[in-house]
């Protein structure tokens, strides 16, 4: 695979995107420290820092890759994704009731996180091949089924959150590719119908989560607990926050999954509304620069690739933060760049690396 690093490429590096990304990742490390320094693994933040370093390396490599060459191997990436997900479903150890991880020499790798990148490349490539101005529902059926198959495999682990990420990924690209507005509405209707039909297929704990989301006081010690405690943490942070390492909800252990899915609660409690606005502004900046990159991309493939990555990134950020704020049901979905977890960090930084790659090559031949 040709990897070109010439001056012109370096000149077009989006330093703002890179800066915002790394700032968020480092804030994440600080929050992981705050969330775990009194617990059983006080050194977790060091591991997270190492992962950010590793991920940054991956980001550099990804940005150096010419996304067009990568897209040439889209089908291969898709097949590899299916194989990895099938392997996980068949052979992965059951951890906390799910099969999500491949254990490789002490490291746990979550293939579904990397499948998101592969899916973005695959969808971008498929839609870039279309040459018509507008697309109908029939045109998106096949790629939709292909992505839906990936989502189904991930949902079987079960990991509904990550599976759901593929939906906005696909929709964003299809939308940009010229899907007719009527079709967009139709697709939304189909998705809603699917959700309604999927209801009886959900596991008990998943249904309980939705019930208690609607009325947390139903079960304050059980499924409603996370939502209640997270809201208390966020609300008690107030305007200016309770101070770093001073949040009682986080420090005394009332907040569940505080270094992973609920890391933003820790930030909201300790840094307050001001900290929340700064963090959300950084996320918005990242998103904005991604979409700018899509706008500036030299070809449809680049624009679609960035849009797919941005779609899944935006969905994760918005859903996770909305969950922390008690707006949507609790679902195991990490916050990109901040939540503790190697696969998530790696996937986010790799994705942003690809976005950088698209921008760097806006003028390249």
């Amino acid at each position, binding site marked *: 695979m040709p990897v070109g690093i010439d001056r012109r490429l370096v000149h077009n590096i989006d330093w703002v995107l890179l800066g915002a990304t790394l700032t968020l990742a480092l804030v994440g490390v600080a929050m992981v420290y705050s969330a775990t320094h009194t617990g059983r693994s006080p050194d977790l933040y060091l591991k997270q820092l190492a992962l950010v370093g590793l991920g940054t390396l991956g980001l550099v490599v990804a940005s150096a890759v010419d996304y067009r060459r990568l897209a040439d191997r889209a089908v291969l990436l898709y097949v590899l994704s299916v194989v990895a997900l099938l392997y996980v479903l068949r052979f992965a150890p059951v951890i906390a009731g799910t099969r999500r991880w491949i254990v490789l020499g002490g490291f746990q790798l979550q293939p579904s996180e990397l499948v998101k990148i592969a899916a973005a490349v695959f969808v971008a490539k498929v839609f870039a091949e279309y040459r018509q101005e507008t697309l109908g529902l029939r045109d998106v059926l096949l790629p939709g089924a292909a992505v839906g198959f990936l989502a189904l495999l991930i949902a079987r682990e079960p990991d509904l959150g990550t599976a759901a990420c593929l939906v906005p990924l696909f929709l964003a690209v299809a939308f*940009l590719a010229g899907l007719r507005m009527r079709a967009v509405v139709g697709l939304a209707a189909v998705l809603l119908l699917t959700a309604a039909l999927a209801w009886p297929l959900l596991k008990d704990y998943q249904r309980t989560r939705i019930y208690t989301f609607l009325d947390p006081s139903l079960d304050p010690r059980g499924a409603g607990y996370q939502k209640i405690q997270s809201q208390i943490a966020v*609300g008690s942070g107030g305007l200016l926050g309770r101070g770093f390492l001073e949040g009682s909800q986080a420090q*005394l*252990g009332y907040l569940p999954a505080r270094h992973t899915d609920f890391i933003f609660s820790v930030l909201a409690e300790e840094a307050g509304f001001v900290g929340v606005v700064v963090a959300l502004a950084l996320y918005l900046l990242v998103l904005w620069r991604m979409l700018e990159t899509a706008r500036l991309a030299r070809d449809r493939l680049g*624009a679609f690739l960035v849009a797919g990555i941005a779609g899944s990134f*935006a969905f994760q950020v918005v859903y996770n933060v909305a969950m922390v704020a*008690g707006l949507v049901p609790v679902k195991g979905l990490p916050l990109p760049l901040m939540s503790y977890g190697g696969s998530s960090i790696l996937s986010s930084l790799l994705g942003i690396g690809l976005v950088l790659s698209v921008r760097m090559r806006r003028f390249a031949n």
Partner: protein
Amino acid sequence: MRIYEDLRVVQARLAILQAIAVVLVALLVVQFWSLQVLRARHFRGLAENNRSRVVTLAAPRGTLLDRGGQVLVGNRPSFNILLSPEHAPDLDRVVARLAATLGVGEATIRERLARRQPYRPVVVKTDATLEDVAALDVRRRELPEVTVEVVPLRSYPLASAAAHALGRVGEISERQLQLPEFKGLAQGSLVGQAGIESLYNRELMGKDGFRRVVVNSRGLEVTEASRQPPEDGPNLTLSIDAGLQAAVEKAFEGRAGSAVALDPRTGEILAMASTPAYDPNEFTTGIDPTLWASLATDPRTPLMNRVIQGAYSPGSTFKVIAATAALEEGLITPATTFYCPGYLNVYNATFQCRGGRGHGLMDLRGALAHSCNVYFYQVGIRLEIGRLAKWAKLMGLGAPTGVDLPHEASGLMPSPEWKMRLFKAPWYAGETVSVAIGQGQVNATPLQMARVTAVIAGGGHLVSPHLVKAAAGGSRATPPRPLGIRPETIAAVKEGMCAVVAEGTGWRARLQTVAVCGKTGSAQVVSSSRLEKSPNAFEMQPHGWFLAFAPAENPTIALAVLVEHGRSGGESAAPVARQILAHHFGLDRPAAPGAAGVADAEAED
């Protein structure tokens, strides 16, 4: 060759996506504004509620002391095992382990958990042993939700002695929680439930302190945020003489009845016993339901304080009142005599005297000494019910004495108005004849009769009987009230009462070195005709009364003794009074070495 693709649609739609992103983030900001700025105070309160727990530091109740400073009711440290279930990850496991460690039933713990108040630890075991505490200490890491607190526990070193006067403590009841006098108390608080403990509850309670502690999500205390130490309840000195009390209890051993001893000069209660009694120590940690049921349903009513709640027919002890009334009304003089043939026919009925053969010619002294009924029938006929009732009420019958104990009975002094009101029937003169010798509708508590005794002993003052000698807020007793009785009257009645012991029905109360005055009485439980049908049935026997004061000159003690179903007062109650008086005058101590032989010989008797 470079092919520029047409990206216009892509770019137009990207602008829409950018707008969606901005709108979504803006919505999130609005929600965070609502949570963190508009409702910050609410959530700060919830966070505070999560992390801080108020632990009550129970104030030790005030100690009750006897007149000599001996502890009658005190406190001892005890261990309570507490469970904080709020954040226990696996409550079932904790409950099972606790039950096994402490030997408490799992069902009991669950029942307590079900009744708990939110964010308050549940008491799993009260008054736990040192072994329990040690066993929990070993399992500290496995059971972080479990804590041990040291609380002062009420202790009654005299056990059942004076139990009714001192009272008992118990967990506050649902009904009490609604009352204004218990305002501000939490469920589970220990409050006085009887006796002095109940009447002086507020004073004795002191002021609970508290610790505000920071706890983590597992309920483990992290630090102490603030502390307010408890204020001990102030001590209360009672007029009770512990030694005399012990003597009274000993004199009653195995018998049902009651006795109360007063200082006739002040109204201070020196001893108060009611038997059968109960051990208030059984109540301090919450009484066992089966024990409570047996106490509450026992036909011998061990929970009742007979001294103030037992209304008995006064029998012949009422003659003290009749004599005083007749003398004061000028209807008789000490020298007035009536002839007693053993009965009196009047108002178309025959009224019997004691024994039956008749006492012959009787003056007041003789009539009191031998308890001649005929003499007092004549006195009653002359007094009539109005004046008799007036004097009885003046001397404290028919109304509570105002003793500093809860739930005192009034007793009853009948009158024509009372009878008309209650039975819509006129008073018959014949009833006055019965009332004059303390039979019929009249009834009185032992404390009321002890007070009557004190009127004669103290020279005509009506005392206000009381148990609390010195309290922070002062004693509630009022000073003795002069009744305006002429000294000659007092002297005449006193002479008669001294003759009761010296030569009459109360000889069994006699002491060698101290002149004792008294009056016997027997209170009919059933009508004479029914008693004749089964003369040996215990529960049909009349109660035995004995009133006494001593020494004859400047008396220092006045008492009333009632032995239930003791037949006659002279037989049953007078010996009890003798034992009490003997202790009061120090005559029951081991004899001096020189007199040892004599004492031994008496013991052989």
